[in-house]
């Protein structure tokens, strides 16, 4: 296997971008990534694009071809492939691109992610997202996505010392980071009271525990490490790519409050990268809901099971803490265009390792991790990158 590096990144602004279409979004992200790598389109060998549900959100399938077409790549007829794993679609697209280059099959590969979610009514987007869970035995019964994570939160808070206030500290911290991220959907800081006074969505989760509905796209370009310096002075090496699966339905999990797929993907990634927890300078975790960040930092092994509330309260997940979590603002503040999120996480880690993260920079960051979850934990992708 060859070593692989990220040589370019690009990300649109995240938010309710009513003036931009699905096509506008990915063309913008792709162009930014090419510009960042100093590449022109004809050098691209292949493309993987993460997208969860264009069929439901904009009634368009066949996204691989559409993207190649509007990115102006029809003259070279490159292979362009859509990858779908609900909210982990982006993470899996990135992994496919890395594998394609590592194998020696391709040289310059684009991994992109895109989702246009605000062209449908909120009820319709809620229903589309429920497709990430078990439609027949969860969705049909009346389960919603926030409802499933709420049942994780109920179970967790019944078994471990996590107060409602502790849980609120997760979005408070993520908004604080997102306020310094120019692409973030919500750039204002919030307080614990903002969270506790927001509308109940599914007890005990409130509106400010939930990531928003977002339009956005992100793209990264990967190449063999040995060629990376042709394109950039700051190649970021991929130290590990890992993926794991679990039961589609939450009720079939070994433990309601543990994402075994996170544990499996995390362990595989640490083994592949040959690094330890203390070596990781920052991690982007999948905080689709506040409770998801609590579970993620435990299941990745940054603290013990049941201690994430205390760990968060002590400030260990803030920039300057033991392990800065979600410096981008996370899904909560930066926004969550589901197919694009896994790629955006990679963009954030690359910016941090290049030292280009501005006010949210983790000083001297050398190694970063991404953690992207599909559904309630049925798919997890974990990547470790380093300089």
């Amino acid at each position, binding site marked *: 296997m060859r070593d692989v590096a990220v040589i370019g990144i690009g990300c649109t602004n995240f938010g309710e971008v009513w003036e931009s279409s699905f096509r506008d979004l990915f063309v913008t992200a792709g162009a930014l990534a090419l510009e960042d790598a100093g590449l022109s389109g004809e050098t691209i060998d292949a493309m993987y694009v993460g997208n969860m549900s264009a069929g439901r959100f904009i009634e368009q399938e066949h996204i691989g071809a559409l993207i190649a077409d509007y990115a102006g790549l029809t003259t070279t007829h490159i292979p362009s492939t859509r990858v779908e794993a609900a909210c982990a679609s982006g993470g899996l697209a990135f992994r496919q691109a890395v594998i394609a280059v590592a194998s020696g099959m391709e040289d310059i590969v684009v991994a992109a992610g895109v989702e246009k979610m605000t062209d449908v009514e909120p*009820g319709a987007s809620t229903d589309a997202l429920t497709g990430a869970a078990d*439609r027949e035995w969860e969705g*049909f019964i*009346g389960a*919603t996505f926030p409802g499933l994570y709420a049942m994780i939160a109920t*179970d967790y808070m019944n078994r471990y010392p996590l107060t409602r206030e502790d849980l609120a500290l997760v979005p408070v911290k993520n908004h604080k980071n997102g306020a310094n991220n120019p692409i973030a959907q919500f750039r204002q800081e919030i307080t614990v009271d903002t969270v506790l006074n927001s509308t109940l969505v599914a007890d005990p*989760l409130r509106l400010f525990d939930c990531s928003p509905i977002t339009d956005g796209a992100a793209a990264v370009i990967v190449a063999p490490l040995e060629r990376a310096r042709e394109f950039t002075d700051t190649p970021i090496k991929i130290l590990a790519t890992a993926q794991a699966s679990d039961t589609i339905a939450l009720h079939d999990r070994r433990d309601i409050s543990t994402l075994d797929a996170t544990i499996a993907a995390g362990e595989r990634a640490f083994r592949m990268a040959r690094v330890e927890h203390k070596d990781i300078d920052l991690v982007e975790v999948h905080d689709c809901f506040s409770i998801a960040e609590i579970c993620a930092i435990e299941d990745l092994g940054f603290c013990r099971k049941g201690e994430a509330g205390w760990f968060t309260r002590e400030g260990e997940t803030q920039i300057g803490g033991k392990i800065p979590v979600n410096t981008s603002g996370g899904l909560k503040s930066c926004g969550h265009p589901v197919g694009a999120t896994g790629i955006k996480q990679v963009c954030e880690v690359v910016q941090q390792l290049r030292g280009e993260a501005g006010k949210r920079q983790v000083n001297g960051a050398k190694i970063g991790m991404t953690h992207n979850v599909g559904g309630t934990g049925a798919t997890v992708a974990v990547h470790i990158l380093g300089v």
Partner: protein
Amino acid sequence: MSVARFWRKIPQRYNLIGTKCLTCGRYFYPPRTFCPLCRRDGKIVEHEFSGRGKVITFTVIRSSSDQFEHLTPYVLAIIELEEGSRVTAQVVTSPEEIKIGMQVKRIFRKISTDGESGVIHYGTKFTPL
């Protein structure tokens, strides 16, 4: 959900009919036709569940998709059936009453109405014992 897709599973949804693996003795509801533990050595037969169980975790859904919005707030829970299998279901009780460990039994209820076709879907909910 399409009429065919729903009707296909009517016995399972109406009467809590799942499956059982004779090789390892595990019960499956929702039904599985392949035992994840025994794999090719598994021997799957139909099994009608007793319908009694207890609440493992729960939430109160305050905001839902179009099909369920009119029911809000409603209680959603993961129920561990007596036989050991777990299932997601609505519990017909108030948000104040529901708690972890509550003993429940199955009841036959309307689950949703399909807005476009007007078809009413029935299935299993649970009620406190």
